[in-house]
């Protein structure tokens, strides 16, 4: 399939879905509205709402808050995950002692922590950051732990035969291996940082995309809810694109599946 054709078909999916949505919410079929506008709004209303947000500039503040929360959650969660992951992988005894608690904490649906964080940290950004951190931490932690554990024994033996000290092994073998695992989970961890921020905002905040959606829902403004969803989706796609670019630069040494040898 050519690129043009593919893009055309991809755009068609959106056009057809929006058309169906618009028709079913605007024109009655056999005297009945299949999708009542009260519950489903319609694309025109949603676009209007999005236009108003951007035209008045209200949306920027909310986007900014969500972005800051997600970035802080990602940064803090990653640093914590890398440190603890390294520590546990190099100290099997410590890892064994903490193992059941790590599993317990990871199995816990993190949403239930949101009220606690709100109580502790207030309605500002830090309660959302904390929620995001609990999500990001475990993804990074497990990947780094695995990365350090699963260094190829041959590569390790080779490194030792090449005269590497324990510190040099850290720097030249364990660290790159752990980082590669962490980077390969970058999409997931960044995604969860956003999830933490938005869910936290939804449950109680003064600004952010989650807050916007929650406010609209509170007054049965379905167009507002949909508008918030679409803005959020676009926001996540932009972030994901940035992550893809970063990933390509960082993992340049990795083979791409199906890549032919030059």
């Amino acid at each position, binding site marked *: 399939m050519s690129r043009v054709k593919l893009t055309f078909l991809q755009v068609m999916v959106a056009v057809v879905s929006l058309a169906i949505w618009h028709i079913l919410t605007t024109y009655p079929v056999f005297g009945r509205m299949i999708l009542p506008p009260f519950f489903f709004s319609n694309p025109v209303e949603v676009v209007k709402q999005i236009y108003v947000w951007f035209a008045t500039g209200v949306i920027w503040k909310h986007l900014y808050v969500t972005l800051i929360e997600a970035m802080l959650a990602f940064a803090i969660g990653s640093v914590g995950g890398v440190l603890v992951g390294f520590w546990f992988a190099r100290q099997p005894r410590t890892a064994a002692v903490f193992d059941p608690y790590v599993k317990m904490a990871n199995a816990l649906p993190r949403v239930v922590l949101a009220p606690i964080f709100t109580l502790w940290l207030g309605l500002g950004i830090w309660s959302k950051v904390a929620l995001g951190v609990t999500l990001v931490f475990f993804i990074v932690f497990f990947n780094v732990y695995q990365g350090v554990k699963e260094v190829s024994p041959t590569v390790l*033996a080779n490194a030792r035969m090449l005269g590497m*000290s324990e510190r040099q092994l850290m720097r030249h073998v364990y660290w*790159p291996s752990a980082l590669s695992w962490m980077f390969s989970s970058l999409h997931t961890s960044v995604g969860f940082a956003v999830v933490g921020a938005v869910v936290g905002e939804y449950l109680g905040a003064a600004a952010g995309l989650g807050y916007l959606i929650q406010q609209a829902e509170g007054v049965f403004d379905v167009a507002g809810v949909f508008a918030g969803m679409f803005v959020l989706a676009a926001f996540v796609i932009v972030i994901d694109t940035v992550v893809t670019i970063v990933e390509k630069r960082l993992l340049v040494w990795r083979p791409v599946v199906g890549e032919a040898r030059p």
Partner: protein
Amino acid sequence: MTETAAAIAPARTNDAAVALDGVDVAFRLADGGVYRAVANATLKVADGEFVSIVGPTGCGKSTLLNIAAGLLAPAAGRVDIFGTTLATLNRQAGYLFQADALFPWKTALENVAIGMETAGTPQDEARARAGKWLTRVGLGSFGDRYPHMLSGGQRKRIGLAQVLIRDPKILLMDEPFGPLDAQTRQIMGNLLLDLWNADRKAVLFVTHDLEEAIALSDRVVIMSAGPAARIIGDWRVKLSRPRDIAEIKLDPAFHDLHREIWQMLKSEVIKGYAQAEAR
């Protein structure tokens, strides 16, 4: 510690480069039993000598190499390297592994330079030397490639440069050309002989290919099928050097020696397969 010892010891001593004396290798099994891989192996590799170990699959050839490298401790017996009993990693040896052992996150040049950088050579100097080594193994223009961009044979060349740049006194090689195709093996064999001819290190070369062993070595050592594999034969290869691997295989003396050694090896290979199937 090692540096002082090296400074005191004369460059060439009468001590063998590698001397295995009554070495036993045993592994603890999951069910609590003990698997005796190698029994009572005694082997001397003189300085500057190229020795191959040939044996059926799974006989413990690689294990013996790991013992000489100090990656594995013998259950009994001792290992002397230039007259000094080996207690830790063998710092005088370079090891070329069978499996891919390059650092996938480093370029070819970085891979070759790393062995010097870890020893404290400044990065610029190490990289300059690494560039020269890449040229010597015929990959001068491949310095910025990552291992996954190179073919199996090219990766082996990088591996060879990575080991040789440190100028080890002993070279341990574990079926290094095993995964390569026949033509590439021949080219790699000649490359190895050329590089070895330059300064004649002691080499312990493990292979299951008898032809390769005879073509490369001064001595061929045969191991029996495991478990409790023993060294059962030791032949001197009296073919002149320098050699070309492809040409030397046409030499009648090569054929005579091959036939003689194969008589012994054949029964061990059959035994080895039978045991592998029974397992």
